[in-house]
């Protein structure tokens, strides 16, 4: 087994990622990059936000540095810190600093998961100053025009406590994502999951049913990503009922009644 290693800031996407645009999002993002504006993507889990970023990075031919945010993420995790190497303190750039230096695209996934004091560090980068102060080094980095900062979040399930601060929010060009319309979604499932059109249509139908169960206790229905994963299992020879159970139903809920109801939907459709 061979493991390929590349430096983060040199990581270029060379092959065109599959992305089916559902609106003018590509034009908007390219224009935002040209005008040095930061980008905010919002939408439910697994609807293609990250894939869109990959596509954009490929289209712009810039390295893409993704940071998955969590509530323990500190400013040092983003900007950088001193490490000890052979008895000496050595500075190590964080992903954000790396991205600024390399003129890359820095993508902070699920930004609301990070603590508010951490997200403030992107403020000077996300307005017309486009600078990143690295206090510990006493440096002020000016972002090159190629650099872009992009953040994403899912407005669906976060609590009020985890909303974006208006001062953060109001710096971005925002693009709203949702699950694609059924025809497009089926096309995506066909292409990515490697299943035939008929099966893809049925999977999309099933996803539509799960998405209408909010009142019944399912916070979020099946995402396009889950459909693709189901498709991949089927393509690998696993029968459709088992594949749906493993890749579509179980990941959605733990409530026995909901699971049973979802299982009944699967057995009705297939």
């Amino acid at each position, binding site marked *: 087994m061979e493991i390929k290693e590349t430096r983060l800031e040199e990581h270029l996407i060379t092959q065109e990622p599959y992305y089916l645009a559902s609106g003018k999002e590509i034009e908007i993002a390219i224009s935002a990059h040209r005008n040095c504006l930061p980008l905010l993507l919002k939408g439910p889990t697994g609807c293609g936000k990250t894939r869109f970023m990959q596509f954009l990075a490929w289209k712009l031919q810039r390295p893409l540095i993704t940071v998955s945010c969590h509530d323990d993420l500190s400013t040092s995790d983003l900007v950088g810190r001193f490490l000890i190497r052979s008895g000496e303190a050595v500075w190590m750039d964080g992903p954000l600093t790396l991205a600024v230096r390399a003129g890359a695209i820095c993508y902070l996934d699920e930004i609301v998961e990070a603590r508010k004091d951490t997200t403030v560090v992107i403020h000077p980068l996300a307005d017309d100053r486009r600078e990143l102060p690295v206090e510990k080094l006493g440096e002020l980095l000016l972002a090159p025009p190629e650099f872009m900062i992009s953040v994403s979040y899912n407005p669906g399930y976060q609590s009020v406590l985890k909303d974006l601060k208006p001062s953060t929010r109001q710096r971005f060009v925002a693009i709203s994502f949702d699950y694609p319309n059924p025809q497009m979604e089926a096309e995506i499932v066909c292409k990515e999951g490697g299943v035939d059109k008929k099966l893809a249509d049925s999977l999309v139908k099933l996803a539509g049913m799960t*998405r209408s169960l909010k009142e019944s206790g399912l916070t979020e229905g099946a995402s396009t990503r889950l459909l693709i994963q189901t498709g991949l299992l089927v393509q690998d020879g696993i029968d459709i009922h088992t594949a749906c159970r493993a890749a579509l139903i179980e990941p959605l809920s733990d409530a026995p009644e909901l699971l049973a109801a979802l299982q009944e939907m699967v057995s009705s459709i297939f």
Partner: protein
Amino acid sequence: MKPALLTERFYDLVAPDIPNEWDVEEVLESLIDESDHVCEAILGHIPIIWPVSHSLCFDFLRLLPKTLEHLNLEQIPRWIGITLDHYETDGLRAAQRFMQDDIDQYLSKLKGCGGLSLASIEKKLLPYIRGIARNDLQIEQAGISYTDTTSIYVPEELNFSPNNDDNFLLYKYILTFQWGFIACGSFINKAPSEFTHIECDKDTFWLRSFFASFEEPLLARDIYHCLESIRVQSFLEQELPGLMRAAGKHLFPLISLRNKNHPLSTLQQVLIEDNLKQGSLLDHYLSKRERKQYLQGQASVYDSINLSSKMFSKFHQKNAEYIPISPLPFQGILKLRAVETARKIKEQKMGEHFADMMAAYLLTLSRKELGDLHKEDKLDSGNEGLAESDISLIMDSEFAQTADQDKEAPILITINNEQLELPAELEEFTKNFLDEFGHLPANFLSSAAGKAGQAMLEQDVQGQTEESSKQKDTLLYDEWDYRRQGYRKNWCSLHFKELTPIHSPFIQNTLDKYHGLTIRLRHQFEMMRSQERFVKRQREGDDIDFDALVESISDSRAGISSSDRLFIRLKRDERDIAVLFLVDMSNSTAGWVNNALKESLVLMSEAMEVLGDRYGIYGFSGMRRARCEFFHVKHLNESYGEQVKERIGSIAPSEYTRMGPPIRHATSILKEVDAKVRLIITLTDGKPEDYDDYKGEYAIEDTRHALLEAKTVDIHPFCITIDHQAKDYMQHMYGPANYIFIDNVRKLPLRIPEIYRVLTS
């Protein structure tokens, strides 16, 4: 058993009620010849039925000879449980009917002839059908299946096959099939162009007028129903092939036509035959093209209307009475009146929603415009027409010329002759309303204007708004009857009461008395507070711990293995806890106990203020199920101010300890709270007990059940008690390690904060 003894036992069991002696003697007659063992067993059921309904209890005894013929003593408790369920859902008549007539059916079920109740699978089927339908359909019980487009009605129980898997499949198929009628638009309300001559008034569904236009409306209805059923089934073939495969394999072979000689039986047969046969069965009635359309799901509701009209003459026999065909189990019936009613309700609801939205919009307009409206409205109060004449909803006439462009035409509102465009959300809602009901919700405008006017008036008059936000002060809760293994529905009414704050030196005295303890508690609780602190000597962290680094370098120079814990990390301990204290205010706490409880609450509140956990304090007491009382001392989000302190001071023992309802209510409060840990801490001095039959095992089991309900929604109950006999029942109620017994009342104030600290850290 001797009559006198029987009567005496009966009066004991129903005390304090004293029913009429004649009645009692009459109903107990049937027991005289029975053995003591049987009598005791039967009398044992009296306390279960009597409190629910006296007449039902008499009926039970009256019907006893027949019951004992059919059921043995072990079967009776379950049978009583079902009877009471009937009583609670459908009333006395239904319960009597069940007792009297349905015993055979009940027996056949007991003998293992299957039978699946809706109640046992509803939780599974409701999300299923909602998912399939992609809206919030309801499932309701009815003798025969049908849908009114907002709910699907299915039998309470299915006894279709001895195998419950088949019964389940039938339930699932009925639900899906009935949804099919909605999805396929079978309840058509708009006349097709060929039938515009059929007159129909506003409140009647066009379909009903259509059927009425035939010489034999029931025949027309049945033909249409059968055709639509075929259409629905073809639709399901395409939409849900898996379900149709299962139905074809397991359900259809079990279904036989009830009246094979009925002229429409062939149309029904198509529904349960396999694909090959279906076509040939329809040969006789439909042309090749029509057959294809129907069996491949390409037919529309208009085709069914046309065909029904055409086929009517084929089936209609003059001078012979038409007997409607009995539907197949899944087919159900077309209940157009129910659809009409549901539609009216929906129209009313949407209209009211519209009125609310419109009122909110009107309030955003300038006060002058609205002020005029309100003034005129008031001038002629009671005449809503005036407001309506000042404000109206129109569709822009330029666009509204052709029906196709309906959706593009902007909807305008005119207020005092001035035209305004509606905000987007309101406009979309109005258009949806137009789509669904064929007219604009103009008749709700006056109510919107009224509401807006009223709101303004209330804004002007201070304090009036508070009235509207006042909480409803009584709630009903179920109670668990362990003998019945079921709930007594809406059994207890819980009244919300306010404690009158009393000025008293109690708080100050307590604080003085426990001065040292308070300081210590504050300090202890401060340590627990959510805080950020730097922890040194970590393997990873945000910064270098230079002390550790220097040490490590000198270690390695000295040849000692050096530590790799060289970092400082910011550690956050977040407490996300919500807790409700439920204080027993029963009579038995009078004296020392009540004082100790109050002192504990004061110390606890002082400590909690330092800690920052959200906490609420409520007291409970009451007498009998109709008057359980829930006293507000401090709400979760209320601050610990003078009023709260005074309310703690005024906590006083009053009546009994019916624990179920307050625990259930505390659960419902905490359920809405978003916190990592949610606790209900009950402070009590003894067993749950009330003046009526809420005693002993019954009370303990109900309390235990209320606690289990809390646990299922992830709320942890904990109990602090000073009852010496607590160990006997506490473990059963709360589970091991979920209660603590304090032997010295005077230690209560010291122990409670300590217990809380251990419990939450």
